[in-house]
């Protein structure tokens, strides 16, 4: 049984069905890539996994480590060990990165984390992400550049140490240095803590730095083809059109 199991998931947003029966398994220690053209439903899946209130599950289930979390609150999913790196992280004016992280960590603990342990973990994450220490005293995402926001997402991931992380187009809009940093962050957390990851991407670039064991392609609200690393190469060569035609022919 996989840690994260998605079965026949149908999701509606404002009376439009976006996901039309998605099945997907992601376990700790596995790296998955979910690819697909714009508008295919990738980000909807990411938000639904995390429990966004605007996304209505009309059919199917999401199970995490044996618990049905289809209707669970986002904070309960976080406490269970799920993490979402946002495509468009929002700014929290007036709250520093460090203070926010301390708050977030403490929500899943009986006693607040002690100062020394927190500092150690923060320093480790800061080194991993190759950011300046002063970064953590800035207000979270407030006035951050695109690259800084994505680094801040990975920094949070490193601090919260999830079992399975969903990265929603974390690679889009990044220059090559930032992209490499983000990828290294994922690789290290995967290697050190055995974190599982679902990397959602429109491009192939990030997959040159993070090697997925499983690749899924989504079109029009369904996963239409699955495979290994070779699928990335095929997409790079041919684009989405041949797959679209194949799927169309099968339908």
């Amino acid at each position, binding site marked *: 049984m996989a840690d994260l199991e998605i079965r026949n998931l149908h999701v509606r947003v404002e009376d439009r069905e976006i996901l039309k029966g998605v099945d997907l398994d992601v376990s700790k220690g596995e790296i998955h890539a979910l690819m697909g053209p714009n508008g295919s439903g990738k980000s909807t899946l990411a938000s639904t996994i*995390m*429990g*966004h*209130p*605007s996304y209505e599950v009309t059919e199917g289930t999401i199970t995490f480590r044996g618990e049905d979390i289809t209707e669970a*609150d*986002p*904070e309960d*999913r*976080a*406490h269970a060990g799920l*993490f*979402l790196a*946002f495509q468009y*992280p*929002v700014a*929290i*004016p*007036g*709250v520093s990165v460090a203070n*926010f992280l301390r*708050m*977030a*960590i403490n*929500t*899943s603990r009986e006693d607040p984390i002690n100062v020394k342990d927190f500092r150690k973990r923060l320093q480790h994450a800061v080194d991993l992400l190759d950011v300046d220490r002063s970064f953590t005293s800035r*207000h979270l995402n407030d006035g951050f550049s695109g690259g800084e926001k994505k680094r801040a997402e990975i920094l*949070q991931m490193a601090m*919260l140490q999830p079992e399975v992380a969903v990265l929603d187009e974390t690679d889009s809009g990044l220059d090559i240095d930032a992209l490499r940093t983000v990828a290294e962050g994922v690789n290290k957390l995967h290697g050190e803590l055995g974190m599982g990851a679902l990397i959602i991407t429109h491009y192939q670039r990030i997959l040159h730095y993070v090697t997925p064991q499983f690749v899924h392609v989504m079109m029009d609200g369904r996963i239409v083809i699955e495979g290994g690393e070779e699928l990335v190469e095929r997409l790079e060569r041919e684009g989405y059109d041949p797959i679209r035609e194949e799927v169309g022919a099968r339908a």
Partner: protein
Amino acid sequence: MPDGVATKAPPVKPGAHREAVLYRALNGAGAGPAPVEELRERAREAYERLELPTWRRSGFWTTSLRDLDLDALTERTYAPGGPLPAAVAEGLPRGDVAGRLVQHGSTVIRAELDPELRERGVVLCALDEAPPELVERWLMSRLPLDRDKLEAASAALWSGGAFLYVPPGVVVDKPFDVVYAIDEPGTAQYGHTLAVGDEGSDFRLRHFKLAPDLDGPALHAGQVELYLEANARCRFAPVQDWGGGSVVDVSTQVVRVGRDAYVHWLPSYLGGSLSRQHLELAVAEPGGDMAFRGVFFAERDEHLDLFAVDLHETGPSGGDVHWRGAATGQAKASFEGLIQINPGAQQSHTYLQIHTMMLSPRAKVDAIPSVLVSADDVSASHGGTVGELDEALIFYMRSRGLSRAEAVHVIVEGFFEPLIGELEDEGLEELVRDKIGEKLQAAAADVEAYAAAR
């Protein structure tokens, strides 16, 4: 008026609100300076003649005290040196002070001052015991006494009161506290604070108005005047927290900034069932500068009417007005900010911003900036935002493990933080933050219902 004849009204910038003429600046008009008894006599006469007030602003905002039953309220006296009311004992920030004066009802029950400061000429005492030669130089020189019955009542009937005088060149780090406390329903309290920072002085003044959750009506009508002479600097932090009872507060506070003087004025309005506040900051001499801040949080069915004036009488002068307010429950809050630049006040530069946040579908917050400019070599502008809770932000925080209530708390605290941080007073910052946190907690169900409805 015949066609083609220009009016004498000062030029009004496009977009300025005509309502500015209804909520009018005092513009330096004062009943004094004059001896105390003379002012009282004139005020008594006005009190007999005047009606209880109603303030209107072009139909959609009314603050009325017509229903106030003055006969049901009495002035109460207490034993000087007697016990501190609980609201004072528990409601003041931690930390040392340079001096503290407490008026309980109509009696000044404490007037403590660091002896070393007393030796250097600092005065902190009841206004009715203050040296007349000092008091009469300033008393009511910028405060009128006959705009309405409650103003006249306050000017005629005040007892106790607070007087602070900081002599030339005296610099004091620790704050001076002036506290007005009501702790029995049926109390009428008339307060009067006169504070003077003489040339080159530098000090902090905190001004508290406190009550517990009273079971019955009470009234505070008060006047505060702060004069900063040449080169003086003051951080002035009033805090109003009348608790959850029905306390009516009608007050006027004026600050006069002299030549090259500076004030940082940051009031916090944290509770009062019906409040009408006229706050006026006048940069009266060249080189004067100021930061005029304010926070308010209205809850339940509170009615808060704030009129803040940024007045420039001469130039060059600077101004920077920045207010933030939120409302829950069925509270109604109105903030009108008037920038007035008088004729000849050239090279005055000022900016007013007001940000509000609605936390309940039944709460109402009006934020009205207005500008009256009568000089041409000046800059005066305003801006602001009206906000609601951002669901995207809440989801973001929940995805990191925070509960919805925790996320709302973070957002609201972050909203006020730019101003609270400016208090530069750890104890007071903590007090204001905690108060806002308590109010959010009390309104949690309301905030939740609002989110569900949207």
